[in-house]
């Protein structure tokens, strides 16, 4: 890295050539933007994706007019990892009505952070369902809003979380804490990848 620290960097290195994605998903106001801001080297930016769908129950002959455009807004931040790799973090709403855009927006994502507020655990059920269904590795991060303390076991039970899915506690306002959430996701990814890799065949002993 040159004299400019990563927090101040506005433009990428000219050598940057590999964009990577992590999605932070969760209910309204759960701290998605806050987490992205805590670790991003740029102020989070906002943009939107539109999707045109054929309108349901509308006569086909109406053609173009029968299409409806749905817009979903999302924000993102950026972390320069090294001279080549740049990680983009996307904060995306987890509500059911936005999820038809999921494949389009986040195909090829490394994995996801499901951010939850323990006072509103049910808000994350749908996101967790979808991630499991889609086979996207994820961790669950409980953002501390000062609600009553729950044990990890209680939270796992309420979310019906598989044992292998990491559950971490965080404060999205803290850079260090948010960074640890991302690290726990990538460590989890490493485990998932290692488990998926076929075990190498042992080199057979030469038969005499």
């Amino acid at each position, binding site marked *: 890295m040159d004299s400019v620290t990563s927090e101040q960097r506005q433009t990428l290195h000219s050598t940057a050539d590999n964009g990577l994605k992590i999605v932070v998903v969760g209910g309204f106001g759960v701290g998605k933007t806050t987490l992205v801001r805590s670790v991003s080297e740029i102020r989070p930016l906002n943009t939107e994706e539109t999707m045109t769908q054929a309108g349901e129950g509308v006569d086909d002959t109406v053609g173009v007019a029968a299409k409806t455009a749905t817009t979903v807004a999302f924000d993102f931040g950026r972390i320069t*990892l090294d001279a080549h790799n740049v990680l983009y973090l996307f904060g995306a709403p987890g509500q059911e009505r936005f999820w038809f855009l999921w494949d389009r927006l986040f195909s090829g994502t490394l994995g996801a952070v499901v951010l939850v507020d323990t006072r509103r655990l049910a808000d994350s059920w749908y996101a967790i369902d979808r991630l499991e269904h889609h086979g996207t590795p994820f961790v669950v991060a409980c953002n501390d809003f000062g609600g009553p303390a729950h044990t990890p076991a209680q939270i796992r039970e309420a979310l019906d979380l598989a044992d292998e899915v990491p559950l971490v506690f965080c404060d999205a306002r803290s850079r260090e804490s948010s960074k640890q959430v991302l690290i726990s996701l990538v460590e989890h990814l490493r485990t998932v990848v290692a488990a998926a890799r076929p075990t190498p065949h042992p080199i057979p002993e030469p038969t005499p």
Partner: protein
Amino acid sequence: MSRGRPGRDDSPDRLYTLTGGRSRAGSDAFDLVTLVVSESDPVAGMQSEHAAILRMCRFPTAVVEVAAGLGLPVSITRILLADLHDTGRISARHPRASYRLPDHDILEQVLVGLRNL
């Protein structure tokens, strides 16, 4: 629009004009994090959005950043990028991994980068 942001002119007419009414053909290659680099400077008479992209991408800039910078939806931005790519005015650095699951080496690089934050 579900969430109108102030200052955003996203009338379908304007978007139609920007893209000449074309659909997404040829633009799907641009991932959200494909890094775009200008290969030339803007020239007089160029569509203003095209010129803005060329100025924005003197250093590698992701498709989402271009969209946010233009204040346009990603789908429209992709079409504008495809125009410039077709004429050789930009180059595109697509995400390396075509993963179902990411590559082990990449994950190690990500971990190192995050720990260094």
